């Protein structure tokens, strides 16, 4: 054990000697590269002695729990003190090596850190060699002194790496807080230039850490420069080291900020260049002269705005705004801190003229007001006279006329007036001619716009008359009318409901094979349908081409049987759907044959029997079926109807072979409407035969076809 202690003693002594050597010869020593690595370990290993000093102090004050035997305790203390001393001495040594690297000029902060660190180390060395002879009380006092020295040294050291303001920065008001910034008092350097330097340069070039002997905190310091010369040359960015270093390739040794550190954006470099080029202007931003090249540059680049930021008037009292603001009259400031207000009216049925007059208390602050589509009359407009600061009035599609515009003739701030879709004529604009701020009048869809297009000129200097879309004169085709009725099947009667989105359109209808033309029946509300019908409809309007035809089936759902059953079952179970329910649910399926709403037959005919309690009269039968050639789904080959008074005594009363298609066509569902002489019966049997042989034009000619049925109606 004593041997180990001897080694520690030797280490400490050699460390102290090396430290003394470095302090004595200082900058005259040159540090080899491998030792520089050791120096750079300083910020890492410094944490070990901190821990050991704290442990040592705790042990001195509270003792080491569990150690009663004095001999053991002394031994523990001996080694604890020795290790603490070794760590402290070598951390100091590494720190001294680091301080000799370029970039760590001997600033006050560095010297404070150095000497407090040395004091701490020497204290520990003293304790290591002399503590055995000290009293318990003295030991405690010395260890507390060590603890305080650790804090002081640590604080100075942290100041070197993080900056002296690091610790207290969160307590100080943040400078980047935009809301606290006031353009009126902002200084050029402090507000525009320094923030860039602060983010990218000042962490190494400040009063504590003066790399390259350069400080960058003030304009004067920049001009004084560092080891290589002035950082900025007023008026000549190309010769300013600051700019040169920024533009060197990133890999270059002299590039600043060094590789790996955050680099300034192009825009920030451009800002610095413009500032140097303009000769380092100082003072308040607002006091830069209009000719100052830097100010012009700032405006061009959008750093400053030419827009009148502040309005001369005071904000309206919040209570007055709150009282008036509601869902029909929305009042908002232009932005968070702006005194100017904008007003938007919504919900035309809630609009009243008084709603304008009510705003008289905040009239001064209102700069924009939107009445679009409100029933605004000239009388309402007369209230706007009091709104002296109005810059934009939007009154599209209102009832405003020339008599209303007269009331606006004293609104000296008015820049934009939108009266599209009103009856405003060219001569109505005359009273506004003298408005000094007027920029644009929006006149689309007004008599004034037509007059302007027709060649009438208005010689108003600097006012744009926006006439909007001009009808190129080509005739367009109308879209087909839309059936409002959604159901195909109805009971008794149904009212035909058709609509078209374009006002003034005539809808003409026909119910046969012929599409409607301009002489066909004119659709009118209340048109009743009683029978099975296909209605075709077409839209007509002056100045437009007639539309394509839209069409729709209407099927009278007819009689509901008391009992229905299927006498046959298709062997292929996939297409049985819900059988009877499917064909009598009066629900029109879509054209997807796999959706489970179609009943399909191929191997056997479909046989449906209807039984009624009383005799019924009927003269038509409708079978809604599917056509889908690709999957062999065709119209039925033959339909037979048998009637009688009981299922066992039926006789054929009607049969028909529907026409088969002559070639490929799209998938569609179609009602097959069969009409015949009126019949009377209690029991009706319908037999639907699928196509026995696909026609010759089909690629599977000769095979059996399918018949798919959605609905059967007896009427």
């Amino acid at each position, binding site marked *: 054990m004593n041997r180990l202690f001897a080694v520690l003693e030797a280490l400490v002594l050699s460390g102290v000697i090396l430290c003394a050597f470095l302090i004595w010869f200082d900058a005259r020593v040159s540090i080899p590269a491998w030792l520089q690595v050791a120096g750079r370990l300083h910020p890492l290993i410094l944490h070990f002695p901190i821990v050991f000093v704290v442990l040592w102090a705790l042990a001195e004050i509270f003792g080491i729990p569990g150690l009663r035997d004095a001999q053991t305790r002394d031994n523990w203390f001996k080694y604890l003190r020795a290790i603490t001393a070794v760590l402290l001495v070598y951390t100091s040594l590494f720190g001294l090596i680091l301080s000799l690297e370029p970039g760590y000029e001997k600033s006050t902060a560095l010297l404070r850190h150095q000497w407090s660190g040395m004091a701490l180390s020497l204290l520990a060395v003293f304790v290591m060699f002399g503590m055995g002879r000290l009293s318990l009380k003295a030991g405690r006092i010395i260890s507390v002194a060590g603890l305080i020295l650790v804090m002081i040294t640590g604080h100075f050291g942290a100041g070197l790496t993080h900056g002296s303001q690091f610790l207290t920065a969160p307590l100080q008001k943040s400078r980047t807080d935009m809301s606290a910034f006031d353009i009126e008092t902002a200084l050029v350097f402090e507000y525009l230039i320094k923030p860039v330097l602060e983010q990218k340069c000042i962490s190494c070039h400040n009063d504590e850490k003066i790399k390259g002997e350069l400080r960058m905190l003030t304009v004067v310091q920049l001009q004084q420069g560092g080891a290589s010369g002035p950082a900025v040359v007023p008026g000549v960015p190309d010769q300013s080291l600051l700019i040169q270093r920024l533009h060197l390739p990133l890999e270059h040794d002299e590039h600043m900020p060094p590789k790996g550190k955050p680099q300034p954006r192009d825009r920030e470099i451009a800002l610095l260049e413009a500032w140097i080029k303009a000769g380092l202007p100082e003072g308040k931003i607002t006091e830069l002269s209009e000719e100052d090249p830097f100010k012009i540059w700032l405006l061009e680049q959008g750093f400053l705005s030419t827009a009148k930021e502040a309005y001369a008037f005071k904000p309206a009292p919040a209570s007055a705004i709150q009282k008036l603001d509601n869902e029909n009259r929305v009042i908002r400031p232009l*932005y968070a801190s702006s005194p100017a207000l904008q007003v938007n009216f919504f919900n035309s049925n809630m609009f009243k003229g008084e709603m304008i007059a009510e705003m008289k208390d905040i009239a001064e602050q209102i700069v924009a007001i939107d009445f679009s589509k409100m029933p605004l009359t000239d009388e309402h407009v007369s209230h706007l006279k009091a709104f002296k600061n109005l810059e934009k009035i939007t009154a599209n599609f209102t009832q405003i006329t020339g008599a209303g515009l007269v009331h606006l003739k004293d609104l000296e701030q008015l820049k934009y007036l939108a009266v599209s879709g009103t009856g405003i004529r060219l001569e109505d604009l005359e009273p506004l001619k003298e408005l000094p701020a007027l920029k644009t009048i929006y006149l689309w869809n007004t008599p004034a716009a037509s007059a302007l297009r027709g060649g009438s000129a208005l010689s108003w200097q600097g006012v744009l008359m926006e006439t909007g879309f001009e009808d190129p004169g080509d005739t367009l085709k109308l879209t087909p009318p839309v059936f409002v009725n959604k159901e195909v099947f109805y009971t008794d009667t149904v009212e035909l409901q058709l609509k078209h989105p374009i006002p003034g359109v005539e809808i003409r209808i026909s119910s046969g094979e012929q599409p409607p033309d301009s002489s066909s029946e004119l659709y009118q509300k209340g048109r009743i349908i009683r029978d099975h019908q296909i209605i075709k409809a077409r839209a007509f309007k002056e100045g437009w081409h007639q539309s394509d035809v839209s069409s729709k089936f209407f099927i009278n759902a007819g009689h509901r049987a008391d009992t229905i059953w299927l006498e046959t079952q298709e062997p292929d179970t996939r297409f049985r759907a819900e059988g009877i329910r499917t064909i009598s649910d009066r629900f029109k399926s879509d054209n997807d044959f796999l959706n489970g709403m179609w009943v399909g037959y191929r191997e056997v005919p479909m046989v449906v029997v209807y039984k009624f309690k009383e005799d019924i009269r009927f003269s038509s039968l409708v079978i809604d079926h599917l056509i889908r050639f690709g999957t062999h789904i065709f119209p039925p080959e033959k339909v037979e109807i048998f009637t009688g008074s009981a299922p066992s005594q039926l006789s054929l009363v009607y049969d028909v072979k529907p026409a088969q298609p002559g070639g490929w066509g799209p998938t569609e569902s179609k009602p097959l409407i069969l009409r015949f002489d009126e019949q009377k019966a209690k029991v009706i049997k319908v037999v639907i035969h699928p196509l026995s042989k696909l026609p010759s034009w089909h690629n599977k000619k000769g095979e059996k076809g399918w018949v798919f049925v959605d609905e059967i109606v007896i009427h």
Partner: protein
Amino acid sequence: MDKEFLDFGLNINRRKFLSRLSVGMGSVALGSLLIPDFFSRKGGEEALHAGLNVPHFAPKAKRVIYLFQNGAPSQLESFDYKPRLREMMGQELPESIRMGQRLTGMTSEQASFPLIGSYYDFKQYGNSQAWVSDLFPHMAKIVDELCIIRSMHTEAINHDPALTFFQTGAQQGNRPSMGAWLSYGLGSENSNLPAFCVLLSRGRGNGQGVYSKLWTNGFLDSVHQGVQFSSGEDPVLYLNNPTGLDKKLRRQMLDKLSELNHLTLSEFGDPEIATRISQYEMAYKMQTAVPDVTDLSKEPDDIIKMYGPECLVPGSYAANCLLARKLSESGVRFVQIYHQGWDQHGNLPNEMAGQARDVDQASAALIMDLKQRGLLDETLVIWGGEFGRTNYCQGRFQADNYGRDHHPRCFSVWMAGGGVKPGIVYGETDEFGYNIVKDPVHVHDFHATMLHLLGMNHERLVFKHLGRRYRLTDVHGNVVNDILKT
């Protein structure tokens, strides 16, 4: 069930619990760690979560209409003119251009990457002399209103992540979308309509789906979610009162229901209940506002001629453009249109012509329509997809029938109105249309710029969730100052 309620109650009471616990110095410090506004007077975080409802600074635009071209239209057949590709038709994409950059699984196995020029010709238009392909004759006519950005780039290479990234600023799909952020930041102008509406349409081209996660509120309150309008005859379903229930009765019913919901809210404190209460109110208000907005009968014939008669067909892109204008005019902050069908991996010349026909006239009409009403200055209109398409051919090489794969390294979008410089072309790609050589605009930059135009600092529009403050631009984004009107 009871256990879950209990857990939930404990959860929401954690803050209260900790703030009551603050007796000793240590717990005060702990409390202020967990509740940053503990010492502040106004309860900054609460104010933060309530949204702003007012812009940070003077806005250029009040509203946005986003014409999203879903599936990624080819920039090489629309706005990024590359004659070199025609000259080098069929030659291999030089490795010095591609630089080993990743490809999708759809073409990475291809043996060769032959360059292919646009099947369609380009011409210069307007005072800005911007190049526009023959596929977009109407947009070409209004090119002096547009700011065409040819240097957009994104991070994702497949549709879903790219779409999600564009809409939410993150690829994973758990963040609020642009419209939700806007609703949160600016609030609704017209309380009778949602602040964020979504309209869908579909072209005949090869399509990619859209999902409701693209208009999600993410971790923001559910009231900020986009309201999807139906593509059918009635944009909003079930607006009418059921038979036998008049307006007064409905009001009474809603009032009672609201009382009950408030009771439940006070018991469980679930914010979703508060949302539900406000959604019932919104639905009631929409009963009057929506028919007003969707009624076309008051539109002059000129309008139908501008947008094209297609605008009368419900659910078409043109109809949605017209509806978007009407919604925007009525104070909807963000109208998000999706037109699907722009994913031309093959059959590009043919399919893209169809897609262009769908959108060209109506997109241009929307700009003109806003302009003639004096609304273009306050409405930002954006047109574009989620990424670009490759300069080389996907699949069989044929000069008149080819495909292009996904390309996130450059694509074109345009903006109009709302404080954007009109009649400019921003950014540049190399002569192969593969890499950006000047003024790149990342999706985050695009978001930052959009928020800036709306008067919001993208670094200050934040919401605290799961212990950190989130932004639409995450920790990125620079405003593209060069395209802002001064």
